[in-house]
């Protein structure tokens, strides 16, 4: 299958000289078209930095990201990002529909009316039919994040980068949103990269889990999740194979926690 995204030897430091903090230290992996890849790692390992680099929002010091064979020099059409901080990444002065339509701002083929129609379809797809004319601040956290996902899909992306999108929603909503994301990824043919600190979520959702080391960060493991395409909140999570993979991922991350000096854990 065709490679959608490839990271080659990505490196990034913050600061210079003796006080420089090396965050990414040669990260390489690739994502094929249609894959759902989770990225997990110990806290503070630079997951968000990595995602920003993959999105073209952050220039790496060394190495390169290529999207569909072309090296990224900045944000690219075809890549949409869903941020963790939905309340600030949605615009309070725009209705939910206007927020979603705003995702099509670079779209020149659709007319205004067509964009609004598509916006309504996308809101329906994320289960918010009746909320087009409401404002984001009138919705719960999970619903706001669904608006943000609809906006991401609106930009006609092929690659959806998800930066801990469910970190701020409650546990029950979270399970529903995981299934919704999987369903949307299939329906809209999105290749997805999910950054998360939740190991269960990472394994449940992904075809592959990329486990990162602690800072300076490299790829520690690249684990194939052979649990089939159909996932179920109850049966998948009870599957011995799920537990096995979860064990491996957790063990890898815990290993780094043990190595981390106590002072840094806090």
């Amino acid at each position, binding site marked *: 299958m065709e490679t959608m995204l490839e990271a080659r030897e990505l490196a990034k430091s913050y600061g210079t000289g003796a006080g420089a903090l090396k965050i990414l230290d040669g990260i390489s992996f690739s994502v094929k078209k249609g894959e759902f890849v989770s990225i997990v790692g110990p806290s503070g390992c630079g997951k968000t930095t990595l995602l920003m680099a993959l999105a073209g*929002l952050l220039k790496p010091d060394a190495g390169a990201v290529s999207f569909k064979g072309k090296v990224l020099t900045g944000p690219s059409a075809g890549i949409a*990002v869903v941020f963790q*901080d939905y309340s600030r*990444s949605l*615009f*309070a*002065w725009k209705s939910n529909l206007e927020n979603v339509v705003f995702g099509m701002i670079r779209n020149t083929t659709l007319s205004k009316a067509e964009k609004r129609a598509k916006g309504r379809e996308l809101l329906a797809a994320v289960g918010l039919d009746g909320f087009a004319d409401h*404002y984001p*601040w*009138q919705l719960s956290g999970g619903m706001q994040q669904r608006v943000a996902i609809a906006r991401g899909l609106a930009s006609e992306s092929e690659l959806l980068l998800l930066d801990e999108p469910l970190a701020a929603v409650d546990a029950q909503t979270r399970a529903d949103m995981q299934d919704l994301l999987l369903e949307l990824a299939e329906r809209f043919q999105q290749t997805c990269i999910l950054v998360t600190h939740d190991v269960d979520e990472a394994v449940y959702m992904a075809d592959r889990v990329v486990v990162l080391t602690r800072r300076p960060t490299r790829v520690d493991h690249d684990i194939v999740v052979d649990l089939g395409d159909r996932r179920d909140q109850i049966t998948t999570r009870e599957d011995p194979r799920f537990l096995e993979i979860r064990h491996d991922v957790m063990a890898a991350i815990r290993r780094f926690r043990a190595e981390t000096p106590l002072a840094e854990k806090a």
Partner: protein
Amino acid sequence: MKRLADKSFWNAVWLPVAILAVWQVLAMRAHTPLFPGPWQTLLAISKLYPQIVGQLGFTLSRAGIGFLIAAVLMVPLGILLGRLKLLGKVLEPAIDMLATLPPPAVVPIVMLFAGTGDAAKIVIIAYAAAVPLLMNTYEASRTVHPSANLVARALHLTKLEAMLHIDLPAALPMIATGVRLAVSSALLVAVTSEMLLATNGIGVFIQRQQENFQISGGLAGIAFISLAGLIINSIVFQFEKRWLFWHYRNANSKG
């Protein structure tokens, strides 16, 4: 519910009424035209109001024009400086310096270029209104949340689009505060500039009245300025309610 409304009405009204009453008593005891009471002021209003309204018209139209010029120039400038960080940093000290300069102090300089007519006054009013508008807009635009900027970049917005679709609306609540300050500055300086560059307007009227020891006439003029201020403020408030509903609701929601 009705009772509560009655109560809050009296809470708002008793202090002004008490002040007026005390003032009237003191004025009656002083018994001199140099210390008129509310009643004498009311008489002066009934006698002078056509003249006052006419003069106030001059003042308000200059204040309005000066304010509009300031708003049209300073809001876009503030947004621009907030987006072009380097330019903002270069100009910030100059803005801070101008901000501390009292508008009456620039009157002689403006006179050199614009004389003493309407143009001079409008320039001074615009200058006074410009400071709070520019500072508030710049500060708000400079501090737009990084998340909003990431979204702008992820959607490949141009700088102009980001300013129009994100910076400006995000800055509106602080711009509104700037507008309130600018409106009161504009009114204040409109009256002051008339007193310094006497031609016409309510400032001239008040000054003439007081110079002729018609204190009650002066007070009548002041009453009209206050009234105009109140009306303008409530108009501004209506606009805020219309355009900033999302901001006020946002503050009340659980987020």
